[in-house]
C-alpha cells in the first residue's frame, strides 16, 4: 500500500484492515445466528430432536469452529468499542491505531485461556486425559 492516501482514517493501513475484518466477522457471526436460532427452535419439537442437533456442537470439528466463532465475536465486539471511541471520543481518531493494538492485545489475552477451556474436553477425548 505505497500509495495509501494520507489523512483519511479508513483507507489503507490498520484503519482499513480492521474495518474489513469487522465486516467479515460481522457477516460470519450473523449467518451463524440464523442457524443457531433454527437449531434452538428444535426445543419446541422434542427433547430428542434438540439433543441430537446439539450433539454435533460437541464433536471435535464443530468444537474447533466454536473457537473461531468466539474469536470472531470477540474481535467484532472489541473493535466495535474502538469504532465507538473513534466516533464519540474527541481524541479517538488520533489514537485509533494504538486502540487497535489494544484490541489485538485483549483478544490474545482472552483467547488463550478461552481456547484452553473450550477445547479441553475435545483434546482429552481425542488424546486421553491430560491430568
Amino acid at each position: 500500500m505505497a500509495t495509501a492516501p494520507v489523512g483519511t482514517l479508513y483507507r489503507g493501513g490498520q484503519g482499513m484492515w480492521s474495518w474489513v475484518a469487522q465486516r467479515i466477522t460481522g457477516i460470519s457471526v450473523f449467518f451463524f445466528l440464523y442457524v443457531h436460532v433454527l437449531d434452538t427452535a428444535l426445543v419446541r419439537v422434542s427433547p430428542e430432536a434438540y439433543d441430537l442437533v446439539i450433539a454435533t456442537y460437541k464433536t471435535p470439528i464443530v468444537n474447533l469452529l466454536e473457537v473461531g466463532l468466539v474469536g470472531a465475536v470477540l474481535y467484532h465486539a472489541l473493535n466495535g468499542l474502538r469504532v465507538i471511541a473513534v466516533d464519540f471520543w474527541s481524541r479517538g481518531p488520533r489514537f485509533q491505531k494504538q486502540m487497535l493494538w489494544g484490541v489485538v492485545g485483549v483478544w490474545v489475552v482472552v483467547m488463550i485461556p478461552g481456547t484452553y477451556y473450550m477445547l479441553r474436553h475435545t483434546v482429552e477425548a481425542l488424546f486421553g486425559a491430560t491430568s
Partner: protein
Amino acid sequence: MSVADRSFALSQNSRNRQRSNFELYAWLFMRVSGIVLVFLVLGHLFIMNILDGGVQRINFAFVAGRWASPFWQIWDLAMLWLAMLHGTNGLRTIINDYAERDQTRFWLKMLLYVSSAFIILLGTLVIFTFDPTIG
C-alpha cells in the same frame, strides 16, 4: 458505518431531497445496540462455551433449567432482537455498498428482511411458548 460513510449516506439523502434521518438513527442504533450486545453476547458465550464444562453440558434439560427463570428469558429475548436487528442493518449496509444494480440491491434486501423477520419471530415464539414437559 464510519463517520465518513454516514456523511456520504446523508449527502445522498439530501441529493434525493428526502430529509429523512433514518441513516442517522441506524448509525446510532449500531453503536447503542453494540454496547449492550457486548455484555449480552460475550456473557452468553462465556456461560455456554467456557463455564463449567462448556458446550459439553448443554442439552434439553439445561435449556429447560435456564428458561425456568424470567431473567434468562429476558436476556435471550433482548439478545435475539438486538443481535438480529444489528446484524440485519449491518448486512443492509454491505448490500448497499457492493450490489451495484438497483434490481439486485432491492431483491437482496427483500430476501434479507424476510429471512430476518422470520428468524426474529420464530425465536420470540420459541422463548415465549417453551414447554419443559414436551415429548
